[in-house]
């Protein structure tokens, strides 16, 4: 039997993974960069906590409500900000994330800044594992469909995507809503796992941590997202003995991986049978093209 500490790490990896997978759809595949995803996590967490601790409703309903709440808010936020470009969008999302935190600070019903303690512990290892796997499958299925391809097209060349009949705004919205819902689920699970909520848990540092995980693993790769999340959740635990040097090491790891391997750990490459097949097919095609050129050259030399 795993010690409860290890179980806890697995649970946190799983919760992070759900949030990061969502963010990966938004950032890695649609090319939008959010600094406010902790805000969606917070909404999910608090709604779920209200459902279980105040309304005494079942846990699954609380998680669903957390996801739905985050998704609804994301529709409003998306409607306002999705027309913004590049850094402006990420600043707007940062503003949103901070606003959520500050608003929660002022709501006494959920404990305000003091926090909200003695929530029931309903999130179990198995719930997290099942949901994390389900989210991987959902993300995978979404990305490998016409909808996912449309998102990637937007990331690659927005104007051309528009000309290809893609409703850019709608797909950005879909990406945002799906990612917000997943962040909401992650938040709901987190609150009901550590049995305590406090607005500062969802500050900008949390948002940036999530983004760092997406990019660390490699943009546009689901397996990269998974690997990135695992490494960056476990790494600080491994270095816990370093005390004050711990975060120095973390910062260094981020810089080194970005500088040494800017495409992230996996970088667009999928660790799946079809991903590997695709990788080799692309290589073969490139080699064929070169061989053709070489042949043509020999011909012209002759």
């Amino acid at each position, binding site marked *: 039997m795993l010690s409860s500490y290890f179980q806890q790490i697995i649970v946190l990896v799983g919760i992070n993974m759900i949030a990061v997978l969502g963010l990966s759809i938004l950032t890695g595949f649609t090319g939008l960069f959010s600094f406010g995803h902790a805000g969606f996590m917070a909404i999910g967490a608090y709604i779920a906590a209200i459902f279980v601790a105040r309304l005494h409703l079942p846990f699954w309903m609380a998680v669903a409500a957390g996801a739905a709440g985050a998704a609804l808010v994301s529709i409003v936020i998306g409607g306002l900000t999705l027309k913004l470009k590049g850094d402006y969008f990420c600043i707007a999302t940062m503003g949103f994330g901070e606003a959520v935190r500050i608003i929660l600070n002022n709501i006494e019903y959920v404990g305000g800044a003091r926090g909200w303690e003695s929530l029931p512990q309903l999130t179990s290892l198995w719930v997290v594992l099942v949901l994390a796997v389900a989210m991987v499958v959902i993300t995978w299925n979404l990305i490998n469909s016409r909808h996912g391809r449309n998102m990637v097209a937007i990331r690659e060349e927005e104007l051309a995507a528009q000309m290809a009949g893609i409703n850019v705004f709608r797909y950005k919205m879909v990406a945002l809503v799906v990612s917000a819902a997943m962040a909401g689920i992650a938040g709901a699970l987190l609150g009901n796992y550590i049995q305590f909520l406090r607005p500062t848990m969802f500050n900008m540092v949390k948002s940036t941590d999530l983004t760092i995980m997406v990019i660390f693993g490699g943009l546009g790769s689901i397996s990269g997202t998974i690997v990135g999340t695992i490494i960056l959740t476990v790494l600080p635990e491994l270095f816990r003995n370093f005390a004050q040097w711990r975060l120095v090491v973390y910062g260094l790891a981020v810089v080194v991986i970005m500088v040494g391997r800017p495409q992230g750990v996996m970088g667009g490459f999928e660790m799946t049978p079809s991903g590997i097949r695709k990788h080799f097919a692309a290589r073969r095609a*490139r080699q064929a093209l070169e061989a053709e*050129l070489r042949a043509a*050259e020999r011909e*012209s*030399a002759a």
Partner: protein
Amino acid sequence: MLSVHELHVSYGGIKALRGVSMEVNQGEIVTIIGANGAGKSTMLNAITGFLKPAKGEVIFNGHKLGRNPAAIVKLGICHVPEGRLVFANLSVQDNLMLGAYLRKDRKKMAEDLEKVFVLFPRLKERIKQQAGTLSGGEQQMLAMGRALMTDGELVLMDEPSLGLAPLLVKTVFQIIKEIRDLGKTILLVEQNAQKALEVADRAYVLEQGRVVKEGAACDIQSDPAIRAAYLGSKSVAGGA
């Protein structure tokens, strides 16, 4: 003046140049023609130091050229790049003045600016407009004008007629001749082989990163194989 020895350049696995040698003498117009992807732009970019040759060297007026474009420009090579690399965020005027970035001779600069405006009156009309909002052709004109402002001895031009209206294509080739008449040397890369060969003294034909033919422009122009491959069955010159 410029000599290139056995230049090899590759992009990752793709070999774009496979041992190209050429000479450009003072005061002549030399043209490089070749199909898309033959390696023409690669050649110019390697000369001005944007690409690292795997092998070979480039000598300009006795200096071996390194990999620092700014230093190479200082030696008196100016390069009109492929595409429209105008400074989109700056005004037309600022673009032109940046052409003269390394120059100190204010009086001559003012004269050259007037000359540019005579050649391209369109630029004078748009002098305050942001270069990024100019049409494709206007940007091409600006790139030419900006190059004239650098006052280098050797001018490398990468497809200056790309995307220009027939009338302007004529103007451009006119200008190329005028620039030569100012005592400059020109290395011209063109898709519009017909036009290029008309103005050039000598020509190199590049195919898949190799020089397959070189000689006087007239000889190349009359070579039947070249005519078939690059000049098309009909004349390409303006008008039908």
